[in-house]
């Protein structure tokens, strides 16, 4: 009888949904785009070491991640690529000040396509006419873009290079454009250059007044605070730090 079948199906569906909801421990981690590869590995090892725990990863530009949280997205852990984003999170009471801690450092580099013939030794070389396009993260929401702007403003190059800049939504997109040869060069993290080793090569490391230091924190709205803190402790432990080093990051 069809209605019997429907009832059975409904029961199974509800049971299945309930089972998913009451999963032992599940946390959502919003992490900066540059942490994509490293955090995927770290999440896997965390789940292996803690059976019953599940880590849902959400990557994007730090600014975008902040906006998602501000609009009510359920996030348990935030890992951003600069202090500014975390400061904003604290100001908006999305993160309690005592929860934040720095867990890794990075460098800002200028990369060119692997087959590029340009020989760029100094930032000033970017003013040359043969360099027509530069990929830069949008400073409004991308930390890598903010670091870049700070560095270029210090060298009085931000305004002159403006017309050549292609603003991207996150640092990985800038990296991709350089890898494809759509831009002549781009500003990305040292870790990104490692991730795309065969496709881009580092022209120079960009000198920065403020070091690139990544903070991580359990959010104020975390559903499972204990689990969130457990994950953060894992990230700071030697095993995860080794993974980060492998991907080109540096100790905090």
């Amino acid at each position, binding site marked *: 009888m069809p209605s019997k079948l429907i009832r059975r199906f409904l029961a199974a569906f509800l049971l299945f949904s309930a089972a998913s909801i009451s999963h032992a421990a599940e946390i959502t981690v919003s992490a900066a785009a540059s942490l994509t590869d490293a955090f995927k590995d770290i999440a896997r090892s965390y789940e292996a070491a803690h059976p019953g725990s599940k880590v849902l990863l959400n990557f994007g*530009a730090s*600014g*975008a991640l*902040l*906006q998602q949280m*501000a609009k009510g997205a359920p996030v348990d852990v935030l890992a951003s690529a600069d202090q500014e984003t975390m400061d904003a999170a604290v100001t908006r009471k999305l993160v309690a000040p005592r929860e934040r801690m720095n867990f890794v450092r990075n460098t800002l580099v200028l990369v060119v396509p692997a087959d590029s013939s340009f020989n760029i030794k100094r930032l000033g070389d970017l003013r040359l006419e043969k360099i027509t*396009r530069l990929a830069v993260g*949008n400073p*409004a*929401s991308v930390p890598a873009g903010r670091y870049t702007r700070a560095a270029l403003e210090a060298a009085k190059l931000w305004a002159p290079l403006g017309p050549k800049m*292609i*603003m*991207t*939504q996150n640092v990985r997109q800038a990296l991709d454009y350089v890898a*494809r*040869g*759509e831009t002549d060069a781009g500003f990305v993290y040292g870790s990104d250059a490692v991730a795309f080793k065969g496709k881009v090569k580092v022209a120079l490391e960009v000198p920065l007044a403020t070091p690139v230091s990544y903070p991580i924190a359990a959010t104020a709205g975390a559903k499972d605070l204990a689990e969130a803190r457990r994950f953060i402790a894992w990230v700071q432990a030697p095993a995860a730090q080794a993974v980060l080093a492998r991907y080109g990051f540096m100790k905090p």
Partner: protein
Amino acid sequence: MHPTWTALALSLKVACWATAIALVLGVAVGFLLARRRFPGRELLDTILTLPMVMPPTVLGYYLLVLLGRQGWIGQGLQDWFGINLIFTWQGAVIAAAIVAFPLVFKPARAAFETVDGRLEDAARVLGMSEAALFLRVTLPLAWRGILAGALLAFARAMGEFGATLMVAGSIPGRTQTLSIAVYEAVQAGQDDIANTLVLITSAVCIAVLLTAGRLAPGRVTHR
């Protein structure tokens, strides 16, 4: 000019060009598929309809691979004409035209199929060339369906985002269309700008849909 109006002007420019291209190609292909039978006709129809259901980012990726500096169309354009379409409004037009094309071609084909072939035969026997009878008999009887499709195509082109973002980037004044501007404003926490942009886009789309609705079949009023 205030960034909002720049984005609107750019969206209109891209949408107009994209719709024009989609219109010319859509009418031509719609007419061809309506009137000629050949093996594989329905398969071709399906392939040409794909951009309508394909995720825009998938489409954007294909376009980036084909039109980029390493793609074979992109390399050809670069070597022969010195043109690079990535990060240009022309690239945005191509992305929008491709997603808008099925919205013109399918109604156009349907409209042409409703025009009685015998009317075209009558025109032939009376001495009209193929071009003349297309303009004098077929098109006047099919134009309403085609126009309704063109309006939907325009609305779609106005809203194009995923493929455009990948191919044309988000360069204010050059390729930052309304939909992309909304996205960036939200990402940067500029809600007031986002709200304005969303209202403008919604108003334009509503206006377009209302007009398209007026042209629906069943409201045939001659001349």
